[in-house]
């Protein structure tokens, strides 16, 4: 008999522009005016949660996003895909610039306890910073098992069967609930929200909380010293003989 777990899905609101520019003061990347939307891996996580609910294996899907006012857009999209309600953790300004995996995982851990969640689903990484840490850190803070890079998820009683995509191939594991799962590309193909569902989503609630309400300290343990573009690709050099090549390589300190 399957337990009625209630999962929490967390969504990244990240920027998705093909042209990234470094700020003139080299403190970071320009994000003003850059188009933001839901992280693709998080879409996959939402889809998985909604599918589990449709199979009646879980009770309720709560979509969470941490960020400024605009990040509520991602919650709305999740609601349109089938999530039941949303929680917007309001973080803006300097706090938002410093918001990294550690801070987000502390927030999620606090929320999970508050909501009595049994399952946390996230994307494996955000495509703007590629950190790939939030899921793992959240599990550690909660002392929960983690199933990362999941390409298949199935619930079996109060355990979860997972297939993980790892360097060597596919790994099959079985973990207890409550647990943290991070979604990889091949877990599923996210659905389009239908027009009726978008309209129904309007009636679903999004609660706003502040990190302070959750007792979370947002100070960053990291200090960004400098952000710069990769070095420009320089022209190569043609040599006549193999001996010349070896001499040049030695000169450049490569051998």
């Amino acid at each position, binding site marked *: 008999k399957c337990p009625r777990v209630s999962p929490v899905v967390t969504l990244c609101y990240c920027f998705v522009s*093909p042209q990234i520019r470094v700020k003139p003061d080299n403190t970071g990347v320009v994000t003003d005016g850059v188009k933001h939307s839901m992280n*693709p891996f998080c879409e996959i996580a939402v889809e998985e949660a909604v599918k589990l609910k449709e199979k009646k294996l879980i009770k309720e899907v709560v979509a969470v996003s941490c960020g400024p006012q605009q990040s509520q857009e991602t919650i709305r999209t999740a609601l*349109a895909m089938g999530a039941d309600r949303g929680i917007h953790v309001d973080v803006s300004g300097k706090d938002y610039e410093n918001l990294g995996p550690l801070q987000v995982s502390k927030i999620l851990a606090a929320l999970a306890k508050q909501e009595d969640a049994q399952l946390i689903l996230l994307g494996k990484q955000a*495509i703007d910073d590629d950190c790939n840490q939030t899921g793992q850190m959240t599990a550690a803070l909660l002392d929960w098992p983690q199933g990362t890079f999941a390409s298949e998820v199935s619930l079996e009683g109060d355990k979860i069967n997972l297939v993980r995509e790892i360097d060597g191939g596919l790994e099959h594991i079985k973990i207890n609930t409550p647990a943290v799962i991070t979604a990889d590309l091949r877990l599923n*193909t996210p659905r*389009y*929200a*239908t*027009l*009726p569902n978008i309209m129904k989503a309007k009636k679903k609630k999004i609660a706003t909380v502040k990190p302070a309400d959750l007792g979370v300290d947002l100070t960053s343990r990291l200090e960004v010293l400098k952000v710069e573009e990769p070095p420009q690709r320089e022209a190569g050099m043609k040599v006549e003989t193999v001996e010349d090549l070896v001499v040049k390589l030695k000169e450049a300190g490569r051998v």
Partner: protein
Amino acid sequence: MAAVGALSRIVRLGSRICKNRVTLGGNSQRRGIAACIDPSHGLTDEQKEFQKVAFDFAANEMAPHMAEWDQKEIFPVETMRKAAQLGFGGIYVQPDVGGSGLSRLDTSIIFEALSTGCVSTTAYISIHNMCAWMIDSYGNKEQREKFCPDLCSMERFASYCLTEPGSGSDAASLLTSAQRKGDHYILNGSKAFISGGGDTDVYVVMCRTGGKGPKGISCLVVEKGTPGLSFGKKEKKVGWNSQPTRAVIFEDCLVPVANRLGEEGQGFNIAMKGLNGGRINIASCSLGAAHASVQLARDHLLVRKQFGETLSNNQFLQFKLAEMATKLVASRLLIREAAQALQENRSDAVAICSMAKLFATDECFNICNQALQMHGGYGYLKDYAVQQFVRDIRVHQILEGTNEVMRMIISRNLLSES
């Protein structure tokens, strides 16, 4: 909103609709949209959601196939059914018969976005929507329940039959006759240039039941397979190749009186009411094509180098692009205003829909044409999408009322005494 129970009984949510992820980045056409032409400006959050779904669907399900559908003349039934499952089959049809119950403005936004994926297919979907709406609005209970659910799910497809070989702009002079005999009409005549003709299942036909002129015209729904209904050859067209176009021929075709929408003599009125919305939809399709073309042109200018620098450094081209963007936004605003006017049933609705259709289809064609020019020789190759946008939207200046007829409607509004 209708009760969810009734909705789920009627709307067949068959297979799960999934996106075909071409790239993980997703909708590459939307990334990095230049801010000033962003079509999401001024929209409500909900409208932005509708737009997002439509853009995503267009980029993932339509754009990759646009060229193939054009070259092989494929009517993409499966893709359109997928669109219907998202609610695009009867966007402004009422929910109690399976429609999405959205506004004319929501509809315009959706067609504009879908059109960036394939103009021809989107234009057909808009015609289908128009027919579904006509039955929804003017049909009685039995007709609505019989036809609308299947049309909204695109289980069945529809065609709008007004034009004849002898009556295009002079639509009220149509000759297809419908003689009453007991509880049937006997139809004789033929319709020309019917979008979807031969491949669709439900034909909304304007025919003459009474005397001359508009007051003698009625609207009948004719189902495919009715004896006496046949089709001409598939026309070979410059564009709109993902939808078949054929003549629809009636030879002593018996149609039940129960299939008549509204009263005898009301047909012309129904046809024109349908066209008001149809004009906004077609104009919206032109808008999507122009939007896509401006982005293609912009991307090309940033990449192509001549005379030692990128084309984007050339002032003439910068100015040309600015003009294209300005006309694009102007067209969009006029269309959205017309959609609002129609939704609110304003007194100027007919005139402003005509203005929007006239202005937008002309300007957007020029935009796409300019975009092709900016591509140089490459613009002429079928490997590049811009030529298909040009070919596909050329006909928007002609159908659903030629732009000349639009001028007639507008001048009549200006010069009439009342």
